[in-house]
């Protein structure tokens, strides 16, 4: 079999970040080729280059032996490359057929759609590749798995020979995954090529013919399932060494500041996100929550903050039952919250700095004085935060949107740590900040720990988890699958746990 896709020396830089460097990839025609790697390993950037969504700064892409220059997705489609996005681009209020043909409708006089012809073609595709879809069904009646098949059909309808699937299993339940894999096997049997992006080692080993591992923006190895193992892959993904914990006195209190017992949570559409999850965080310790994104971390945080309610089980924060307590009262009891999506959840972009100092503290002194906002206290304390956390800003009257992301983050952390909170929920506290800011934030988190605060640290950054945490809890598919001691844990242990392969 020939090589249908050859990539060599791809490089892509973004402001301040090198997303891809020296990426090489060889994909054989008619194979399922998996690309695995951590969050931020550069998989998505590579796929975007292959689909013409972005243009790499250097390197070459060859399709079927010919060097190509992809300027737009249309170029990629013309060469037979199709992409199934993780977030579907479909319209609910239309039929499957309409969603599939949009943009390349077979038509008479360029105006009248030949629906019969289109339907015939779609049914043919469905039969050829054994995709179970009904052309005339409305999208709003379809579940996630079916929607994904529509996306695949959309790509096939345009004559794609190479399919890129961006984390296709992230949104699926196990049965749907099995069905998807059967579909993929059918596709390659008929001569198509599948590029499959994933985090999950079990899946990758079971489905793919070849595996390419990416780490820190580059490809580090190409293997076949036959000559590798879960352990080897996990180590390749995570890297050789893990940072050692920062030494510090550990004085853990008897008292549990956060206690989650058997908590389950299902979304309104019935999909269960958290399954009988258990977690305890005591005063004076930092518990790291490790896991691939989308395994229930966000929901867990929102349960703790009283923004969501459990279906069964209990979440207790500082002896308050969060299912009956308002977010306001949870905060007033001494819970700090550093949200992971800071610009949406953590700040008011169009408000000045000093007003953002008040946000989250507006229900108690000193930021509020009865019904009144205490501007002078807010101004004074903003100045303190700016000083202590080295926030680079011309003043406290500047709109937050004028600050850089790192400075916004330092300000949020500074705000949340003020008033000596007892429990700190820190989600991705140093994402997107420079090394200096990271050091400042870490130092303050460690200080809070030494004065007896309990910290739940949710992070995708392994260095951060290992440097700060006293214990690391691993969340996978809505449950805590293992609790590890960072001092004794090897990268492969963690990699295995995070990818659901620990048992």
């Amino acid at each position, binding site marked *: 079999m020939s090589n249908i896709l050859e990539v060599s020396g791809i490089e892509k830089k973004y402001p301040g970040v090198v997303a891809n460097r020296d990426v090489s990839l060889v994909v054989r025609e008619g194979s399922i080729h998996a690309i695995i790697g951590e969050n931020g390993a550069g998989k998505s950037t590579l796929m975007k280059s292959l689909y013409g969504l972005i243009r790499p700064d250097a390197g070459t892409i060859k399709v079927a032996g010919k060097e190509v220059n992809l300027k737009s*997705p249309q170029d990629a489609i013309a060469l037979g490359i199709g992409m199934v996005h993780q977030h579907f681009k479909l*319209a609910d209020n239309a039929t499957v057929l*309409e969603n599939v043909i949009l943009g*390349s*409708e077979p038509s008479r006089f360029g105006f009248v759609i030949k629906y019969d012809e289109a339907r015939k073609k779609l049914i043919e595709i469905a039969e050829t590749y054994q995709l179970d879809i009904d052309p005339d069904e409305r999208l709003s009646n379809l579940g996630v798995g079916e929607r994904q098949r529509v996306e695949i059909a959309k790509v096939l309808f345009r004559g794609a020979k190479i399919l890129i699937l961006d984390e296709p299993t992230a949104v699926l339940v196990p049965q749907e995954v099995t069905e998807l894999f059967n579909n993929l096997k059918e596709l390659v049997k008929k001569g198509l090529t599948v590029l499959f992006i994933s985090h999950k080692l079990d899946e990758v080993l079971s489905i793919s013919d070849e595996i390419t591992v990416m780490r820190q923006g580059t490809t580090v190895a190409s293997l076949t399932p036959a000559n590798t193992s879960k352990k080897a892959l996990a180590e390749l993904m995570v890297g050789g060494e893990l940072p050692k914990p920062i030494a510090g006195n550990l004085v853990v209190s008897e008292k549990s500041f956060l206690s989650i017992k058997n908590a389950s949570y299902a979304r309104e559409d019935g999909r269960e996100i958290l399954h009988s999850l258990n977690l305890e965080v005591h005063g004076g310790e930092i518990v790291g929550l490790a896991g691939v994104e989308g395994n229930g971390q966000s929901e867990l945080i929102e349960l703790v903050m009283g923004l969501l309610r459990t279906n069964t089980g209990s979440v207790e924060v500082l002896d308050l039952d969060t299912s009956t307590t308002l977010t306001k009262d949870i905060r007033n009891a001494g819970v700090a919250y550093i949200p992971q999506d800071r610009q949406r959840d953590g700040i008011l972009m169009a408000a000045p700095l000093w007003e953002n100092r008040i946000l989250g503290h507006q229900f108690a002194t000193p930021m509020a004085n009865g019904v009144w906002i205490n501007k002078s206290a807010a101004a004074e304390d903003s100045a303190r935060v700016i000083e202590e956390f080295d926030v680079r800003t011309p003043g406290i009257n500047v709109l937050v949107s004028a600050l850089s992301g790192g400075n916004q983050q330092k300000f949020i952390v500074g705000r949340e740590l003020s008033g000596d909170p007892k429990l700190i929920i820190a989600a991705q506290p140093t994402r997107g900040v420079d090394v200096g800011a990271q050091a400042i934030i870490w130092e303050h988190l460690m200080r809070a720990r030494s004065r007896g605060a309990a910290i739940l640290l949710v992070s995708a950054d392994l260095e951060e988890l290992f440097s700060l945490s006293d214990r690391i809890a691993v969340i996978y598919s809505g449950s805590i699958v293992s609790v590890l001691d960072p001092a004794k844990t090897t990268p492969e242990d963690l990699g295995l746990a995070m990818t659901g392969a620990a048992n």
Partner: protein
Amino acid sequence: MSTETTSNSTVAPSSMKSKAKSLVSSPARIAILVAILLFILSIVEKVTGSTDISSPGTSSATLRFAIPLLMAGLGGLWAERAGVINIGLEGMMIVGTWTGAWFGFKHGPLIGLLAAAFFGLLSGLFHAILTVKIGIDQAVSGLAINLIAAGGARYLSGIFFPSVGGDRTVSPPVDSFPTFTVPGISPLLQSIDEKNIFYISNVAGILNGFTKEISLVTVSFLLFVPITSWILWRSKFGLRMRFSGENPMAAESLGINVYRIRYVAIAISGMLASLGGAYLALIASSVYREGQTAGRGFIGLATVIFGNWKPGGVFAGSILFGFTDALRVRQNESVMSLIIVGGIVAALLALYFVLSKKWKPALYSSIVAVFALWINKTVDVIPQEFVTVFPNFATLIVLTFLAQRLTPPAAAGMPYRRGSE
């Protein structure tokens, strides 16, 4: 051969399922429902002795009042299906009344109609430039258009009309379009109506109103309903227009120029609304009069919601609202007959829901039925104000209780910039 067998086994059941579904919502079913409704009406008319509802006068008045609402509603539909809410429908109707009357007066009614279409198109394009290209708030743009159109029409009336035999608020009379009576059928229906046979005469009376002295313009405007349907569900442009209103990002990712589609759709929206206005001035009456549109643009907006963003639904909504409009100018006891009909329908629905064990809708329907009965017993005359405001009230009720059943275009009213995620 082998593929054919697979096709039978895997695909046939599902396509049969969808065929069964399409049969359920087919025109035949609607026809049966209408027939039942008319039957109830016949009974009520028999009992109360008032025959105004099924008189040809009422049905022709209904049509006359329904067409402007229909055109405004279709205008709203075109804009919203493409993803932009058009609150400026009222103003665009004013554009139609004024230009229709003025050019009609100068050059005959046909030119008046064409001028209304042209200026309506321009007013729609204006809304499109403001909302699509510049990206200002759709509601602000629409309301400003209403204001400018109302002010502009009054300004221009003050300048142009007094010198040619009108006055500051009324245009001089415009020649009317010829009307025709369907030969053979209309007299036949009339004779059946006069025979007073139960049910048959009632139906004949209603149909007679649709065949007697009808304007060609009315008929051609009615054609916009199937044309719109055809474009939306059969043409390439219609498919792309619907996706522009449902998920413009998805459409854009497939290489579709969402902006261009919205320009065209909103321009047509303006044209349709303006033609609805011209109908008021040229067919429903024969002059422009200040305030002639009387909020019909907003009722048009309501028919879009009432009709669940479908041309047939908009048509049904405008007939219903046009009917209440017609009742306003006709006998008042017919409103009471209508309430009795509504009460009976609600009671039947309640029975149906009880039998199918849907308790909540059953409760609601029985409340409506009892309420209708109570009104019939206690109130002599339904105040005209409530008849006038029925469309608005009905729409609010639909929004409140049936919001989950409605399928508005998902992106309608949302700001959208090219290249945004």
